[in-house]
Every structure is written in structure tokens, then in C-alpha cells.
């Protein structure tokens, strides 16, 4: 059963920030509630300090998807269903669209918000690798400050982020790429729908005359939190993109993942899958690129 608590419905951002400004452990933001409500109901440890839930669903500053010249800005409390209906996301950030389409079920996507996904920061958060690979940044406000940091910097450990108790993520900004990227997003769960991800991978590649100009690689679920592989990305740039390269990169990615997680009981299964999936994704990206899809 959900422990006894208060729920407060601020009408605007300032009101919400004032409610958080005492910096206390006992106040927590609720948006879609798809993690926090079952978590409270199961009396999970990480929610046990909560005395006040600040519901942000009626705050206009956290809503809306706006396209400007150089980026798209997504309101933090936009649901996955809203994001899936946005043409700019579908056309220009197809990996984010695909990741969003695989979150939970229709019922979950109708409530769950994009910021909730990475503020909760479960290792399996599907939108995280997709946002990381597009170099998403977050606008964060408190009563006394306003800043913008990259999602990569924001995520610190499983279920932990750099968000202070008096702050709210207000917007997610995703810049339009100046490269000719082709990409793929892959999710492996134990079943095809309503599945918690076991492995997610996101790849963006800019090929130029069969040479890798730039590549971006991100994973989720198979690493403790969603992560980019910057070293590996650097290693790839300028390489000739032949079959040997695809095999090399797939092997190296699996090695990097082991480096982050250490050997686990599941490694014997997951690593060959990561390698095979990475190789297949590269082949798909190459053929999309060749046919100009």
C-alpha cells in the first residue's frame, strides 16, 4: 500500500520551485508516476523518504515541443505518446522515436514522461541511449539558478543523477546534426511488448566514400546506466568501413562493455549478442546509406 503522503498541484514552474526550495528529502516530483506509484505501493527503499509529491502535470512551462532553427526543445513533462506524434522527432530523430515507441505499453506511454525516464535513471531506460547519441542537453531550473548541461554529464549512477533536490528539469534540447548521419536503434527484451530492456544499442554513422567520418555509439541496460563510448568513437573515425572494420568494432564494443560492468553471470549470453547485434546494425546502416534511405 502507498504510505500516507501529501500531493500538491502547483500551477506554474515558480510555484513548483518554491515548494522544492527547502531542499528537503521528503519532497519529490511526480509526472507520469509510472515508476513512482508502483514503487511507493511496493514500499521500495528509494522512495521511503517521500512525504510530499509535487505533481508537475499542470505546469505549462514543462509542456510543448518546439522546433527552432538549430534544435528541437521537448518539454520535460511531455509523454512518450505526445513525442511519438511529433513529425520532427519522427523524421529527424528516428532513433528517439523508435526508442519511445518501445517504452512499456500504450497505457504506460500515455502517462510516462521523457524527463521521468532519465531522472529516474533506471539502467534500462529506453530513451536514454537515443538521447545520448543525439547529444541531448537539459535545461534545469531552481528558484535561484538556471543552467543547461548535457544528459551525459547529468546521469551519475543507476537511479542517481546530478539533479539537486531543489531543481526541476524543464526542457530537453536536441541539436540538429550537421552530419549526414544514418542510424539504428535496437532493443532486446525478454518478450516483444511491455518488456524491460536487457540490451539497448544506438548507433549513428556518417560514412564518406566508405570511410567513417564520424560514429556515435550508446548503450543501455547492458551497462549500469545508459552510456556513450567516446574512446571507441574516436578510434573509429577515419577508418575504412569494410567488413573487417564492422567485426572489429563489434568485438571492441563488447570488450568495452565488459570493462564497465565486469564479468557477470549473464555475460556469456549478452556479449555474443551485443557483438552480433552491433555487426548487424552496422550492415543495416550501410545498406540504408547506400540506397539513400
Amino acid at each position: 500500500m502507498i504510505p500516507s503522503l501529501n500531493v500538491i498541484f502547483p500551477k506554474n514552474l515558480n510555484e513548483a520551485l518554491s515548494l522544492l526550495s527547502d531542499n528537503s528529502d521528503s519532497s519529490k516530483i511526480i509526472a507520469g508516476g509510472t515508476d513512482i506509484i508502483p514503487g511507493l505501493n511496493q514500499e521500495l527503499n528509494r522512495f521511503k523518504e517521500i512525504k510530499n509529491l509535487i505533481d508537475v502535470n499542470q505546469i505549462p512551462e514543462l509542456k510543448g515541443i518546439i522546433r527552432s532553427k538549430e534544435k528541437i526543445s521537448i518539454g520535460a513533462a511531455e509523454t512518450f505518446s505526445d513525442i511519438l506524434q511529433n513529425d520532427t522527432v519522427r523524421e529527424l530523430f528516428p532513433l528517439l522515436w523508435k526508442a519511445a515507441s518501445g517504452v512499456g505499453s500504450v497505457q504506460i506511454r500515455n502517462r510516462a514522461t521523457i524527463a521521468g525516464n532519465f531522472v529516474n535513471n533506471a539502467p534500462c531506460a529506453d530513451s536514454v541511449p537515443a538521447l545520448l547519441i543525439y547529444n541531448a542537453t537539459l535545461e534545469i531550473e531552481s528558484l535561484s539558478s538556471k543552467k543547461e548541461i548535457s544528459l551525459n554529464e547529468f546521469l551519475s549512477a543507476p537511479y542517481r543523477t546530478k539533479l539537486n533536490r531543489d531543481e526541476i528539469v524543464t526542457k530537453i534540447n536536441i541539436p540538429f546534426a550537421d552530419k549526414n548521419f544514418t542510424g539504428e536503434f535496437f532493443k532486446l527484451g525478454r518478450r516483444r511488448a511491455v518488456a524491460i530492456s536487457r540490451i539497448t544499442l544506438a548507433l549513428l554513422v556518417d560514412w564518406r566514400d566508405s570511410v567513417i567520418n564520424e560514429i556515435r555509439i550508446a548503450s543501455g541496460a547492458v551497462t549500469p546506466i545508459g552510456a556513450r563510448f567516446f574512446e571507441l568513437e574516436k578510434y573509429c573515425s577515419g577508418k575504412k568501413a569494410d567488413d573487417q572494420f564492422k567485426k572489429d568494432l563489434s568485438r571492441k564494443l563488447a570488450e568495452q562493455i565488459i570493462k564497465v560492468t565486469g564479468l557477470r553471470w549473464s555475460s556469456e549470453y549478452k556479449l555474443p549478442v551485443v557483438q552480433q547485434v552491433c555487426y548487424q546494425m552496422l550492415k543495416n546502416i550501410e545498406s540504408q546509406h547506400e540506397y539513400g534511405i
Partner: protein
Amino acid sequence: MKMKVEFKLNGANVSVFAEPNRRLIDLLREEFELTGTKEGCGVGECGACTVLMNGRAVNSCLVLAVQAAGNEITTIEGIANGDLINPLQKNFLEFGAVQCGFCTPGMVLSASALLDKNPDPTEDEIKEAVAGNLCRCTGYKQIIEAVKETARLSRKN
């Protein structure tokens, strides 16, 4: 402390006092005795507690009762016209899409939300719409057929 919650329930304006830690499913079942909304898993995986919130399917076990304030909630009791069942319900019966019946209210509401915005869904779109509704009698085929037939008939009329 109880909070006043005013919302639209199955077309009627209602006002009720609810504890902030009460879930919408509990309010619907216990306060309004709308027991067509079922609790299966309680964590948002089975969809037995599906209701419509402003026309969209949501799991009522993942919504707090106080979050219903200002919104429009439709339960399975609200989609029939009094004693007259709606075409989706009729086709569920005709196609044998009901076995134990526990998933049926949620299944019908998910399908109803789909048909409201997409009167001519493909089979894949139907599957996607009900993917969050588990049927452990595994009668999915009949369910999908019932939804297809409802769409077909409504287009004909």
C-alpha cells in the same frame, strides 16, 4: 488529509474526498463500486485496470485518485449505453473473445481508444493497442478478430 477531487466519471460530474495515497483503481472500485475495473498485477504490466483518461488508455493502478481531478475518466461501465452494450462488447461476445473475462474490460477499453482515433486499424495496430493487456486464457486471436469486425461494421455504417 483527504482532498476534494472533482472530475467527470462516465459522463457525469462527480465530487469526492480521497486520501492522497489512494490509487484511482481503488477509488473507482470502492467508492463508486465500478468493479468492472480489475486489479491484476498492480504494477502496470497486465492492463486489467485500464480506464480511459481524456480518451486515452491508462493503467488506473498507476494513477493517484487525486490526479483524476479536472479530467474525464471512462470505465467499462461507461462505454455501454445503459443496458445496451456497445458494438465492441457485442463483437467480443460474438467472436468468443471472452473466456474467464478478467482481462475483458481493459481489453475493450484499449480497443475502444484505438478505434476512436483510428477507425481503420491494421492488424499490427490492433496488436500494438492491446499489447499492454494480458489475456492469460491466451485468446488473443478472437480478440483481434472482434476488434477488426467492429471497425469494419462501423465503417460500413
